[in-house]
Structures are given as structure tokens and as C-alpha cells.
């Protein structure tokens, strides 16, 4: 553990004017890394809360550690030996006298057992209760809750499908025929598409059930699967929810996250383009009803599919802060992490939140986020870890960048390849897209391939500008080879490379000796060795 240099104000201090400036907590532990850890630490510090960071060995010198008042080492790089170690995280919180733990997203954020352990230790888990996480984390239970709340869930089963009873096969197939093909076999404990199987014909169903159950059992330790109609084409639209411990629940607008690849979101925006005020109100109202029925508190997101007939179908609830929460903040001007802390400390939702929720039916701003990741969009978005060289992120009016990356940083292969979230906002969607194009032009990254070419493509796309969104958008539109995007860039790059060599770049003379210590191995070679040593886990 290292002590920070700052002497924080503490939980209760006096402002200059003599009024009490009471923070929701004296000290919180942030159980995450990267941009989200930094974002949470910033919100905490804005509230006068002392922060405790946790880190794995590869993150010891990272920005989130530096930003916190205290830092505790968890273990080696693999998440299973560091950020996923619930016992070590809780122990760190107890040893540093933290009163609350903010889990961020990913890692331990949706583990009901972790939330319960935090509660049992007398600490506050900044998020929904362990009971709510448990009941909503089971997708079948969530579907039953939606049914109870009168919210239409994607048509399908409400109970686990029988997988290994030959006498039940006919019954399962009869149910499937009723739902209609093609359908999806989904894991009750699932997420990220794991345990999911697409089935087009009845005769393929038994095998898909068995395979989905086996994959789900190995990934989540729970082999329960169920059937769901495949809704296609569809848009993915989700509602940001905030609920206090007094039972007040509000919807802070929706986000369209249709641009996905293999269930990984790439671009998100708020509000969802093209919804009528009635549709927007209906959507928010359904989400709030569901949250009330589930006894949901703190921050959560209800996900829906919006079909070609303009109907909403409930998909699932994420009981945590979302990666894309920032677009909602840009539209509503509400700091969601700050609200999370206040709610966790027991304060009722403030008048500003209530007012923002009331205004969410007719939003006056539009925000778009693109996820900049260390992935190669020409090679199926395969993760490409490495060392970042130049790193310049955009700024200026209407631009927000959430990142914890600095020039020279190594993007480790052990974690999610997300390195920055670029968000833009303006009064109109058109204006936001123009700002996105401008901001993308300001991005300068060398050393690793990123998803920036894809985002530039989206920002320039006529269909995207027209709001023609679908979860199949990426598959239908993104083909960097056919569109000559990459080859045009290669033609420019080749000329520049030649010009640089003619100008003497890399000449093994004095110029290079000045720039590089010959005893030090090249950054590329080093990065290559590092990449070879620890391949990406998937």
C-alpha cells in the first residue's frame, strides 16, 4: 500500500462560508482499472471523497493508481489473480478503512456474491442490492419479472428448457414451433453471447440445446438455457435508470447501441434517433415499471430490442454503470457516478435528477460515443495489444474523452482492449456527427492499430447520418477491403514512408544515435516479444 501525497478534506469539512460540505462517504475503494476507475475516482474526488485504487502488477504505474489517494496491489496481471479476486478486493477495502466499494463495470460489478460479501462486511456496495443483482442477473428470472410488471419480453420461454430428457424433446420442439424459427437458445446466466445458439430448423434444436447448455455450464457454472425468438432486423435501445432507497425510480433517457459486432457495442448515442415522443415515453415507462417491480436501486440499465414494426421487446437488465453512461451524462447534465454515491449513502434522488428525468421525454441535446479499442477493424476486430507511441486525443467544444492511457503505455493483453471513449455532444444529431468527424480527425495514435478507421467510416456514412441503425449494421456495411478505405490509406502511407526514407529517416547515422540509446532494444521488437509472450486470452 502506498500513501498518497494529498491531505484530503475528509468526509465533513467546512467551506469558506462556514456551511457544512458533507460528502456521502469519507473514503471509497474503486474495484476496477483503466478509464472507468479513473472516471469513478474523479467523481469521488469532486465530492470530497478519499479514494483507494487497486491494481495488478502490470498496472502499478497506471493513471488510475496515480489519481487515487491510496493504492493496494491485488496480484499478478491475469484478472483471475487480481481484479476478479473478491476476497482480496474486500480485504483491501477493510484494511484501508474504506466505507464503500464502487465496482465500475465488468470484473466484480454484477456478481451478487461479491455485493453480498461487501454488505455482510458492513460496507456499502455502490450499486443495486445483492438481491436485485442476483434476481436480474438470472435472465430467466428477469424475464419472469418483466412478465409480472406487464412489460413485453422477447417471446420465448420463462422456465429453463429441458436439455437431457429424451421424453421431453417433443414438448421442447412444440414450444419452439410456437415461438417460431429462427430462434435463439440462450444461457440464463449468460452475457456477451456465450452459451447462445441460433437455430433455424426444429431438427437442429436438441443439439443446439445441448451445446448451449454445455458452453454455459463451463462459462458461468450454470447450464440453464431457454428459448427466445430472434428479432431481426432490430435496434438495440436501452434505458438509463436511477433508483433511490426510498423507492423512487426514474428513467434518464435512452441510448441506441445498435452498432455492435458479436454483441460488443462499438457506437452508442442518446437519444435514440427517430423515436416519437410517445414511443420514448412508453419505453421509459416500461423500464421504470420493471425497475420498481424488481426493487432496483442505484444505477441500472434496461435493454430492449426495437423491431421493424416499432415494438419494444425487453431483453435484460444490467445492474451496473454501463460503459456508455457518458452519453446520458452529456445529454442530461447529470453526473451518474456522483448520483450513485449519493444514492448509496441513502440520499433521496435530488430535484435536479427528477427534473432531468422529466425532460428526458424531449431531450434538447444529442450525444454520440465511439469506443476506441486496440482492435484491428480490417481483421475482424481482433485484439492487437502493443505499446502506444504517439497518443493525442481530441478536445474543444462538445468533446469529452474518457481514457486512462498515456503515450508510451503498453496495452496489456490481459484485459478488455478498450482504451478510450470518445464522446461528442451538440444540440442536434447532425451537429454531433459533425463534431464526431472533427474530433476523429484530431485523434493521433501510433504504435497500435485501433478501431479509429471504423469510427471514421461510421461518422462519414450516409445511412448512419439518416439514422438507419440495426444490430446487423456492421456486418452489412463494414467491409474495409471492398470500400478501398485501407488501400487508399496504404497508397498515402507508402509515399510518406518513401519520402521519410529519402529524407534520411532511420539512417544509421548520428540522427538515429541521438534519438535512441543503442543499448536499448527497439520498442517494436520489445512490443513484439511482449505480444508473443502473452497472447490475448481469446
Amino acid at each position, binding site marked *: 500500500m502506498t500513501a498518497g501525497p494529498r491531505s484530503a478534506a475528509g468526509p465533513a469539512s467546512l467551506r469558506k462560508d462556514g456551511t457544512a460540505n458533507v460528502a456521502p462517504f469519507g473514503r471509497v475503494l474503486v474495484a476496477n482499472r483503466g478509464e472507468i476507475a479513473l472516471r469513478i475516482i474523479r467523481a469521488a474526488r469532486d465530492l470530497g471523497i478519499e479514494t483507494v485504487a487497486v491494481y495488478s502488477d502490470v498496472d502499478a504505474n497506471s493513471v488510475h493508481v496515480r489519481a487515487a489517494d491510496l493504492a493496494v496491489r491485488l496480484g499478478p496481471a491475469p484478472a483471475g489473480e487480481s481484479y476478479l479476486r473478491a476476497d482480496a478486493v474486500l480485504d483491501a477495502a477493510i484494511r484501508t478503512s474504506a466505507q464503500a466499494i464502487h465496482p465500475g463495470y465488468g470484473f466484480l460489478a454484477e456478481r451478487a456474491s461479491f455485493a453480498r460479501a461487501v454488505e455482510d462486511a458492513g460496507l456499502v456496495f455502490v450499486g443495486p442490492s445483492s438481491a436485485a443483482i442476483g434476481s436480474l442477473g438470472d435472465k430467466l428470472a428477469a424475464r419472469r419479472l418483466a412478465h409480472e410488471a406487464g412489460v413485453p419480453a422477447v417471446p420465448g420461454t420463462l422456465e429453463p428448457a429441458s436439455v437431457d430428457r429424451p421424453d421431453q424433446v417433443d414438448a421442447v420442439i412444440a414450444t419452439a414451433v410456437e415461438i417460431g424459427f429462427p430462434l435463439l437458445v440462450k444461457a440464463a446466466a449468460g452475457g456477451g453471447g456465450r452459451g447462445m445458439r441460433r437455430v433455424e430448423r426444429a431438427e437442429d434444436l436438441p443439439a443446439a440445446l445441448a451445446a448451449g447448455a454445455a458452453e454455459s455450464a463451463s462459462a458461468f457454472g450454470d447450464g440453464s438455457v431457454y428459448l427466445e425468438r430472434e428479432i431481426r432486423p432490430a435496434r438495440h435501445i436501452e434505458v438509463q435508470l436511477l433508483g433511490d432507497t426510498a423507492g423512487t425510480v426514474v428513467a434518464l433517457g435512452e441510448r441506441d447501441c445498435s452498432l455492435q459486432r458479436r454483441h460488443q457495442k462499438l457506437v452508442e448515442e442518446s437519444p435514440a434517433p427517430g423515436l416519437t415522443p410517445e414511443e420514448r415515453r412508453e419505453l421509459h415507462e416500461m423500464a421504470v415499471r420493471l425497475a420498481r417491480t424488481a426493487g432496483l436501486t442505484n444505477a441500472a440499465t434496461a435493454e430492449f430490442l426495437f423491431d421493424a414494426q416499432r415494438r419494444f421487446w425487453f431483453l435484460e437488465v444490467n445492474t451496473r454503470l454501463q460503459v456508455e453512461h457518458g452519453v446520458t451524462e452529456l445529454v442530461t447534465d447529470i453526473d451518474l457516478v456522483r448520483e450513485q454515491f449519493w444514492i448509496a449513502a441513502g440520499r433521496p434522488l435530488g430535484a435536479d435528477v427528477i427534473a432531468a428525468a422529466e425532460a428526458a421525454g424531449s431531450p434538447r441535446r444529442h450525444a454520440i460515443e465511439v469506443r476506441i479499442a486496440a482492435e484491428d477493424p480490417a481483421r475482424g476486430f481482433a485484439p492487437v495489444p502493443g505499446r502506444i507511441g504517439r497518443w493525442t486525443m481530441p478536445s474543444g467544444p462538445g468533446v469529452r474523452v474518457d481514457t486512462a492511457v498515456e503515450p508510451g503505455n503498453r496495452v496489456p493483453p490481459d484485459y478488455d482492449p478498450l482504451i478510450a471513449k470518445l464522446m461528442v455532444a451538440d444540440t442536434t444529431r447532425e451537429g454531433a456527427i459533425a463534431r464526431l468527424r472533427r474530433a476523429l480527425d484530431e485523434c493521433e495514435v501510433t504504435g497500435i492499430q485501433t478501431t479509429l478507421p471504423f469510427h471514421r467510416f461510421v461518422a462519414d456514412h450516409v445511412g448512419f447520418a439518416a439514422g438507419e441503425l440495426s444490430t446487423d449494421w456492421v456486418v452489412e456495411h463494414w467491409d474495409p477491403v471492398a470500400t478501398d478505405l485501407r488501400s487508399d490509406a496504404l497508397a498515402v502511407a507508402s509515399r510518406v514512408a518513401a519520402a521519410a526514407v529519402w529524407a534520411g*529517416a532511420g539512417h544509421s547515422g548520428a540522427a538515429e544515435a541521438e534519438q535512441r540509446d543503442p543499448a536499448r532494444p527497439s520498442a517494436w521488437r520489445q512490443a513484439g516479444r511482449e505480444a508473443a509472450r502473452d497472447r490475448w486470452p481469446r
Partner: protein
Amino acid sequence: MASLSRRPLRVGPAVTASLPGDAVVDLSPDDALAVEPFGEGRWSLRDATGLDHTALLGEVLATKSGRLVEVVVAGWRFELAVDDAARADLVERAQRTNRAQRRGGPLEVRAIIPGRIMAISVAVGDAVAAGQQLLVVEAMKMQNELRAPRAGTVERIAPAIGDTIDLGDLLIVIG
């Protein structure tokens, strides 16, 4: 290695970083007239339509045969192998010749150094033995003897005494 300044260059993605269909191009200094340095590590290029492109120059490594250059354009990152075009030709021809030789075809002897032909020791139609002197090239004030890589008959002699030859120029064909 020899300086690459002002010589035609062959540029294409390094083998480990290329995708099928990636173009390899030969560029002469004239092709770089529209390319200018634009601050530290940045270059600008004006294309035929008058549009300006900005490119980021990352790391440049010296390789055995040239340079490995990292360039990022419009978010696309390339690792480009930049080699002397004549030398790259030579390597390619040598590979072709090796294959041809294995098949017993004629052998092209090409200049492996630029310089001036000082002497020609054989005539068309002569039978030569492997290792026999073919001609003498002066380069950097040194006399370099060029010898037959294998036995055969001299089918063609391209240069004359006093000619200046460049890297990769055809000198002699042995049948």
C-alpha cells in the same frame, strides 16, 4: 548499408503485417514531390485531386535490406518495408534465377554493385567454367572481379567497357 537517398524505392507492408491484396509500389523521388514534413512526426501529402492527407510517422527501424517504417493514415496503421527498388529487383531475380537454374535454364548475371565496367574477359559464344572471371567492375575506387556462378556458354554481354552500371543491371547471360 548504402544510402537510400534519392534512389527509387520499393514500398509495401512488411510480410508479417500485410493483408491479401495489399499493393507493393515502386516510387521514385518525383513521386514524393507532394509529400512534405509537417511538424514532428507528421507528414502531409497532397493527392492528385488536391486533397491534403496527414500521415503520422512512427518508428523507423533499419533492416538488413532497408527500413521498416510505421505510418498511420486515417487511423490505419502500416508497417512498411522500404527497400532500394533495384536491390529488391535483384533479390527477386536471384530467386527466379535460382529456380531457373534448378530447372537448367539460362542464367542472368546482374550487377550487385553500381560502378563502371573496366574490363570484359569473355566473348559471346565462349565456354566458361564455374568461377572463371567474366568482367571487372570498378566501384568506390576498387576493382571487383565478377566470376561465373556456374559453367556454360556466354550467350549475351550487355555492357561495353567504360559503361556505368547500376545495381541490378543485366551484365551477362550464361546458357
